[in-house]
C-alpha cells in the first residue's frame, strides 16, 4: 500500500521507538502536523526552536535514546543551529527534521528557503536533503543509526514539502548500507595489553575519564578497574557522574569515594590538577583533552606516559601526544583490561600505590574545595550543597553556563551517570532549562533541576510556557548575582576590574515572571531561607522558578589563568 511522505515519517519514527517530538510548526512542515494526530507520538510544542533542539538533547543525554525535533524551513531551521552545535560538541544523539521549500524551488531564494544542510555541515555528524520520496525511509533509518552509533552526534534531515506530500510504498529497511561508516568498537587486544603492562608497573597513575564513559555506559567497568589497580580517578566536566564521588553503603550512609579526585582543569580541584601533573601514567578514557582541561599544553602531565581510549580516532593525539592509543568503545576496552588484570594476581597493586595515594591525600587536605561562609548573605555554593543534600544523588541536574555551572561541577558531588547535563564543549548559555524539560520528558517521575544564572535563564525563559502548558514539573534554581558572573570574574582578575558589559541590573522580577507564565515563583534572600524554599519547591508538582539572591562578587576557585599550566592555580 502506498503512503504519503508525512505518514511514512511517523511510521519510521515508530520503528525507531520515538515517543516524543519537540517541535514548532510552519508552512513547510504542515503536512507532517496534519498527519500527527493519527499517531501515538507525543508532541511538545516549544516556544523557540532553539528550545526544541536543547530539549531533544536533554532527553537524549538523560536517557541514552535518540532525541528528536521537528521545525519548519528557513528561520525555524536556523533557530536550531545553536542546539545542533551544542549536541555536536558533546556527542549527543539527536535527529533534527527541518522543513524545506519544494524541490523545484530550491536554489531560487524562495520564501523561507535556507541552505540548512550547508549551514549545519560543520556541526553535524551527517546530514541529508531528501530529494526523492523513495529515499525517505532509508534516510530516516540511516539518520537514527548514525546519530546513536560510534561517536554519537546530531544528524539533520531536510524535508522538502513536495517530498513529504508524495507517495510511495512503505517498507522500513532492515539494514543500513553505509560503506563508508565502520566505527571501531572492538579495541585492539595488543594495545590493551600494552596498556596493562604500563599500568601495572606505574607508581603514580591517574585515571582521567570523560563523557565517553557515560555515553558507553561504562561506569561499573571504570569503578572496577580503579579498584583493581588502586588508581585515583578524575573527570572532565563531561565525565562527572561517570565515577561516583561518594559511595553509599547498604545502611544508606554515604562516604566520600577515596579514589575520587574531583574535576580536573581550569576550575579543577587542587588534588586533581596536582595528581595529573605528577602522574607517571595517565589512563584517559573517553576524553578529548580539551584546552579547558589541559591548560598550557606543553606543561600538561609533563612526566606521564599517556594511554588513551576513544571511539573517535581523531580525538587521539590531536592535542597531546599519546603513547598507547586504543581506538574503540570504552566499555569494550575496559572489559578487556579488567580480564587481563583478573587473569593475573594483582595483590601488590595496593602496596605499590600506597605512597601515591598518601601524597594525594595530603594535597586533598592542603587545599580542599571551600568557600567563605557568611550568615548574612546567601553563598551560591551553599545553595548547591543544600540542593545536593535535599535532592539526593538520583535527581537530574542540568546547568546553564557560567559560575553557577562551575560551582555545580565542584560542589554537587555526582554519584551517578546521566545525572549532570551541561553544555561542556560549546558552553551554551540557555541550554540548561530546555534540557531539563527534555530530561523530565524522559523521566517524568524524577526530580529535574536546572541550576541557572540570572543571565543564562533569560536566554530561553520562553520555554517556561512550554513547561506550564505540558505539565512538565521542572525546577529552576536561579543563582542571582545580578552579573554575568564568569566574565565579571575574568574582568576582575585579568582585565583591571573593568566591568564593561557584565552587569545585569534591571532583570525582571523572576517570581512575578514565573507567576505571569502560570508557574510558581519563590525567592530566598537570606541563608536561613534557602532550605525551606528548596523543600517547598521540590514538593510542588508544577514548574517552579526559584530566585536565590546570592553574594554578588563571589569567585570560582581554584582558577587556572588562561594559558597557564594547571598547577598554577589561584586558590582564592
Amino acid at each position, binding site marked *: 500500500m502506498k503512503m504519503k511522505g508525512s505518514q511514512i515519517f511517523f511510521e519510521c519514527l515508530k520503528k525507531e521507538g520515538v515517543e516524543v517530538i519537540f517541535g514548532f510548526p510552519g508552512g513547510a512542515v504542515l503536512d507532517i502536523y496534519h498527519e500527527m494526530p493519527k499517531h501515538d507520538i507525543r508532541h511538545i510544542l516549544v516556544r523557540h526552536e532553539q528550545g526544541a533542539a536543547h530539549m531533544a538533547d536533554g532527553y537524549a543525554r538523560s536517557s541514552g535514546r535518540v532525541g528528536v525535533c521537528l521545525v519548519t524551513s528557513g528561520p525555524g531551521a536556523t533557530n536550531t543551529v545553536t542546539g545542533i552545535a551544542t549536541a555536536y560538541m558533546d556527542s549527543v544523539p539527536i535527529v533534527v527534521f527541518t522543513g524545506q521549500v519544494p524541490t523545484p524551488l530550491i536554489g531560487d531564494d524562495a520564501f523561507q528557503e535556507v541552505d540548512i544542510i550547508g549551514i549545519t*555541515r560543520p556541526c553535524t*555528524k*551527517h546530514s541529508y536533503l531528501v530529494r526523492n520520496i523513495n529515499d525517505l525511509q532509508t534516510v530516516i533509518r540511516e539518520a537514527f543509526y548514525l546519530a546513536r552509533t560510534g561517536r554519537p552526534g546530531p544528524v539533520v534531515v531536510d524535508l522538502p514539502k513536495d517530498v513529504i506530500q508524495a507517495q510511495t510504498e512503505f517498507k522500513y529497511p532492515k539494514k543500513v548500507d*553505509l560503506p*563508508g*561508516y565502520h566505527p571501531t568498537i572492538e579495541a585492539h587486544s595488543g594495545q590493551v595489553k600494552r596498556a596493562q603492562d604500563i599500568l601495572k608497573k606505574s607508581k603514580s597513575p591517574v585515571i582521567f575519564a570523560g563523557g565517553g564513559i557515560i555515553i558507553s555506559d561504562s561506569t561499573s567497568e571504570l569503578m572496577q578497574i580503579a579498584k583493581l589497580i588502586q588508581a585515583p580517578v578524575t573527570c572532565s566536566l563531561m565525565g562527572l557522574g561517570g565515577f561516583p564521588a561518594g559511595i553509599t553503603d547498604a545502611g544508606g550512609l554515604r562516604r566520600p569515594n577515596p579514589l575520587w579526585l574531583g574535576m580536573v582543569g581550569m576550575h579543577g580541584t587542587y588534588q586533581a590538577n596536582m595528581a595529573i601533573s605528577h602522574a607517571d601514567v595517565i589512563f584517559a578514557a573517553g576524553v578529548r583533552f580539551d584546552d579547558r582541561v589541559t591548560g598550557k599544553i606543553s606543561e600538561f602531565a609533563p612526566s606521564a606516559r599517556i594511554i588513551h581510549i576513544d571511539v573517535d*580516532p581523531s580525538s587521539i593525539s590531536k592535542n597531546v601526544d599519546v603513547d598507547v592509543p586504543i581506538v574503540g568503545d570504552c566499555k569494550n576496552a575496559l572489559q578487556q583490561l579488567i580480564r587481563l588484570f583478573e587473569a593475573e594476581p594483582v595483590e601488590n597493586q595496593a602496596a605499590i600505590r600506597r605512597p601515591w595515594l598518601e601524597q594525594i591525600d595530603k594535597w586533598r587536605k592542603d587545599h580542599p574545595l571551600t568557600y567563605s561562609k557568611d550568615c548574612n548573605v546567601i553563598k551560591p555554593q551553599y545553595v548547591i550543597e543544600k540542593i545536593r543534600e535535599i535532592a539526593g544523588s538520583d535527581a537530574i541536574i542540568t546547568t546553564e553556563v557560567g559560575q553557577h555551572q562551575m560551582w555545580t561541577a565542584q560542589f554537587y558531588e555526582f554519584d551517578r551517570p546521566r545525572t549532570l547535563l551541561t553544555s561542556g564543549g560549546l558552553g551554551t548559555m540557555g541550554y540548561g532549562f530546555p534540557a531539563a524539560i527534555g530530561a523530565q520528558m524522559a523521566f517524568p517521575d524524577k526530580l529535574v533541576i536546572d541550576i541557572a544564572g540570572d543571565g543564562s535563564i533569560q536566554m530561553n525563559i520562553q520555554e517556561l510556557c512550554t513547561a506550564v502548558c505540558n505539565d512538565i514539573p521542572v525546577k529552576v534554581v536561579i543563582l542571582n548575582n545580578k552579573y554575568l558572573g564568569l566574565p565579571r570574574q575574568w574582568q576582575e582578575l585579568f582585565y583591571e576590574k573593568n566591568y564593561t558589559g557584565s552587569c545585569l541590573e534591571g532583570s525582571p522580577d523572576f517570581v512575578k515572571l514565573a507567576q505571569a507564565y502560570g508557574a510558581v515563583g519563590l525567592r530566598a534572600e537570606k541563608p536561613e531561607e534557602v532550605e525551606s524554599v528548596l523543600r517547598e519547591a521540590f514538593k510542588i508538582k508544577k514548574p517552579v522558578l526559584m530566585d536565590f539572591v546570592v553574594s554578588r562578587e563571589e569567585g570560582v576557585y581554584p582558577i587556572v589563568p588562561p594559558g597557564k599550566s594547571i598547577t598554577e592555580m589561584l586558590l582564592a
Partner: protein
Amino acid sequence: MIITEKQRYTIGILVQNVPGVLARIVGLFSGRGYNIETITAAETNEPGLTRITLVTTGDERVLSQIIKQLNKLINIIKVYDFAETEFVDREMALIKVRAEQATRAEVLRIVDIFRAKVVDVSAHFYTLEVTGNEGKINAILELLGQIGIVEVARTGKAALARSKKH
C-alpha cells in the same frame, strides 16, 4: 607535542558520488584551517564512486588529523595516505606561449624534449599540452617562462597507488 617539518602530502580519497560530498571535504579543510594546494575529482570505472586526489601541506600531526577527519565523513569510502604507499601521479597542463618567428623553433624543441603536444596554433601563440609529474610540469614552465607564457591551466595532480587495487 612534537612538531615536525611542514611538507607536501598527496592524499587519495574514494567517495560516494552524492550531492554535497565535495563541499563536505572542502568545508572540512577550510573549517579546520588545513591547506588545499590542488584538488582533482572525477568519476571512476565503478558506478557511483568518485576519486579525488588532493595535495596539502602541513606537518605530520596535521596530516594525521586530516586523514582521521576525512575518514569520519560518512560518504568517504576510503582515504589513501600516499605518504605510506608508493603511488604514481600525473598532472596535465595547458600552456599558452608566445610563438613569434624568432622563438617558434625553440618552443617546438622544448615541446619535443618534454613530449608535449601543440594543441592549438594562432598567429602569435601556441597552446601546448603537457603531461607528467609535478616536477616535469614545473620544469617546462620554467623554460617556457623565459620565452613568454601568456596563460596556464593546470589540472592538479591525479594519483593512484601502485600495484594491487586498494
